[in-house]
């Protein structure tokens, strides 16, 4: 290996880093297949913005390719399974692969999901040779079901990546999934590659006009000339082409294990037993975060029962979770799923606490003189919540809608405000109530009676007209009161095309005591929606 000059910080200093690159071909497809539990032969296409982003080999055989419109792809391959492309899924499902590699070889750099780089020197010395190190890596990945992975080893990450990719075009594709470029031969390996692999389209166009068609031709130019003509970008591309990469392998620091798993043996069927046994773990969870200088603001609680049921819920906190808050969330989640008094349907065997969002402790530190009155509010309301449950303490928003119960949205304390509600408020709602809002809105409309002068119920005919003038209101059954003024019917027809739609008539009525009522007439029956008391 060529001795490297010190001065790693300088971007253009020519260095060689013996690098091993692990490449998993078609990683988005592999990730999607694993996520949706499909067989590897199943034709699958991932769609982004209506076009095929990538597809599985079996789909490719039937003519599906990148950039095809969805309909076109489905015509070519009728059994195609179409899934949306999810970059987060790629990253998430690559995490176990990196963890596996880190188990046997430290210092992994994640280049992108499906591609990672390592220093080759250490593993080569440990396993005896580079071949053996690469074979050990592939063997470890085969153990977690990844058989298609490939390894390339060369003097620079760029060359190693292309060595790994080049295994596909080897003499016997599939069997030999390791390609090792011996030290010093990287430049000659790269020399036959076209300029496109540099991923510098404008530079490639100019070079082609100058008669340069391969990386070898480009590398043959002197470095000083390239720098003078093409500037820093050109110089970097020239370094890559000559097998010297200014990029070194930046080792990833494995993230600290922050989640906590508790196995209950035997499974616990009572909530108080469970929260009691969880207390230590919850404290450990919070302490471990605090040691890392973090606080958890969004928590995922996973509960698994003995019978295999799983309950996963995401909890937010207006400030951050301490151990008591964590226990409260576990309890609320159990109370939501089962009968509180009589324990659970079956015992809980496994509890997992995952910090979904962590923030820096210093952002949430208490001020020297406290953080003002809101802190008290949080503490007080959290106390009430732990008495009554998460959904018992509410804040409210005014939303859009025709019916009064639609026009309010209750949000449990600590949950984020509903964006949909805020948006719907500004829409036009023809048929909404004019004038001042009634102060009392019944959760469920209350049955009332509206009678005419002969004492029979007032109704509406098929033309939407009242059968008689309303004279008497019976709001609380024994007591009758005379109607002094009234208005209506105001018809409201919502979603008439839908069987769940509603059709009703609204009335405003003032009785002799001066109390105003908002009444509904639905299917010949009268209800009180609200009262202006």
């Amino acid at each position: 290996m060529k001795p490297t000059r010190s001065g790693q910080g300088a971007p253009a200093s020519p260095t060689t880093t013996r690098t091993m690159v692990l490449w998993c071909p078609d990683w988005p497809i592999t990730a999607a297949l694993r996520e949706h539990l499909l067989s590897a032969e199943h034709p699958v296409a991932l769609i982004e913005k209506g076009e095929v982003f990538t597809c599985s080999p079996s789909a490719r055989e039937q003519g599906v390719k990148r950039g095809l419109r969805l309909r076109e792809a489905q015509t070519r391959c009728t059994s195609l399974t179409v899934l949306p492309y999810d970059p987060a899924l790629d990253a998430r499902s690559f995490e176990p692969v990196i963890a596996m590699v880190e188990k046997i070889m430290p210092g992994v750099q994640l280049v992108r999901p499906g591609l990672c780089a390592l220093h080759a020197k250490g593993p080569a010395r440990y396993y005896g040779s580079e071949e053996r190190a690469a074979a050990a890596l592939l063997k470890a990945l085969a153990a977690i079901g990844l058989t298609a992975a490939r390894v390339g080893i060369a003097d620079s990450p760029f060359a190693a990546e292309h060595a790994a990719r080049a295994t596909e075009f080897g003499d016997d594709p599939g069997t030999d999934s390791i390609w090792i470029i011996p030290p010093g031969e990287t430049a000659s390996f790269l020399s036959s590659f076209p300029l496109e692999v540099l991923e510098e389209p404008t530079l490639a166009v100019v070079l082609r006009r100058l008669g340069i068609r391969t990386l070898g031709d480009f590398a043959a130019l002197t470095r000083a000339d390239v720098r003078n003509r093409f500037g820093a970008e050109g110089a970097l591309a020239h370094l890559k082409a000559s097998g010297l990469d200014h990029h070194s392998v930046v080792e990833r620091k494995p993230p600290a294990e922050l989640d906590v798993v508790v196995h209950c043996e035997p499974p616990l069927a009572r909530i108080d037993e469970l929260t009691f046994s969880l207390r230590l773990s919850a404290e450990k969870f919070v302490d471990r975060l605090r040691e890392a200088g973090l606080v958890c603001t969004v928590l995922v609680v996973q509960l698994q029962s003995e019978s295999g049921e799983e309950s996963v819920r995401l909890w937010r906190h207006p400030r951050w979770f301490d151990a008591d808050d964590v226990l409260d969330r576990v309890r609320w989640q159990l109370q939501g799923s089962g009968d509180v008094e009589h324990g659970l349907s079956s015992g809980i065997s496994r509890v997992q606490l995952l910090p979904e969002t962590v923030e820096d402790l210093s952002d949430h530190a208490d001020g020297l003189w406290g953080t003002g009155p809101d802190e008290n509010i949080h503490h007080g309301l959290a106390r009430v919540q732990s008495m009554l449950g998460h959904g018992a303490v509410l804040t409210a928003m005014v939303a859009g809608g025709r019916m009064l119960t639609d026009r309010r949205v209750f949000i449990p304390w600590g949950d984020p405000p509903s964006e949909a509600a805020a948006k719907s408020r500004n829409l036009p709602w023809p048929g909404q109530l004019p004038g001042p809002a009634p102060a009392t809105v019944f959760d469920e409309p209350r049955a009332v009676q509206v009678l005419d002068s002969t004492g029979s119920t007032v109704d509406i005919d098929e033309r939407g007209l009242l059968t008689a003038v309303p004279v008497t209101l019976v709001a609380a059954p024994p007591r009758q009161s005379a109607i002094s003024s009234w208005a209506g019917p105001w018809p409201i027809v919502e979603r008439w095309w839908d069987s769940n739609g509603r059709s009703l008539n609204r009335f405003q009525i003032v009785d002799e005591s001066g109390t105003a009522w908002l009444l509904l007439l639905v299917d010949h029956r009268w209800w009180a929606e609200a009262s202006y008391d």
Partner: protein
Amino acid sequence: MFQAAPAGSTPQGARRALSAVDHAGDKARLKAELQSKINGMQNSRPSSRRLPTVPVLAGILPGGGLQAGAAYSVANSTTLAMALLAGPSGAGAWCSVIGMPTFSVEAAASFGIALDRLVLVPHPGDQWLTVTAAMLDVVSIVLTCAPQHIAPSDASRLMARLRQRGAALVTMGPWPHSEATLSVTGSNWQGLGSGTGHLRSRRMRITARASTGRSRTADLWLPELQHGPWSTSISDPASTSTADAESGQQGFFARSARAS
């Protein structure tokens, strides 16, 4: 040090007395200050600190407004309860509504109650007392529908907590220790005919009966209760009392609100 204390915390009587003795009255001032503190701790009467109140109601409430540490009961009108909450909420206080699932937040918003500082506990169940006590610790004013039967000892304990925290309690329905009972004694809606129009405004007669037995009434329009014009003077008994309430405590007995 005492110059820096907020003016509202000085008892009104003491302040008036002090203005006469001014510079020689350092000792007297200190004494009065301490005496008022002792009174605040010993006395079963609420402190003289007032919460911001909607002016038309401040005019008829005993003491010229909602007093910190006092309880008020509202007989038959959620609208009136909302008007009581609107003053403190508009001044930035946190409010809480306990045990009232029919409380309309849209109407509350139209009264100027800030919904982001309003906490609702619609169904406290049998833990009403604990929840209300916990809320009184953290918020400035609590509106609640008290259970039918409450033990006198529980009520006194709640009142003690109320005085200690300086919050105000508004109950729907009767409450044993209420400072005043507010009720709507007359209501007349405008805008509705027989089969025509829609509800537009409401003329209300509000009666506040103090625990001493003295009662005052005010006639006003509903929009006036909601969003002013609080400071303009219309030739109307209610708005005259408004002007008086703003001019301060001196005009308390000269107010035109009728005493019966």
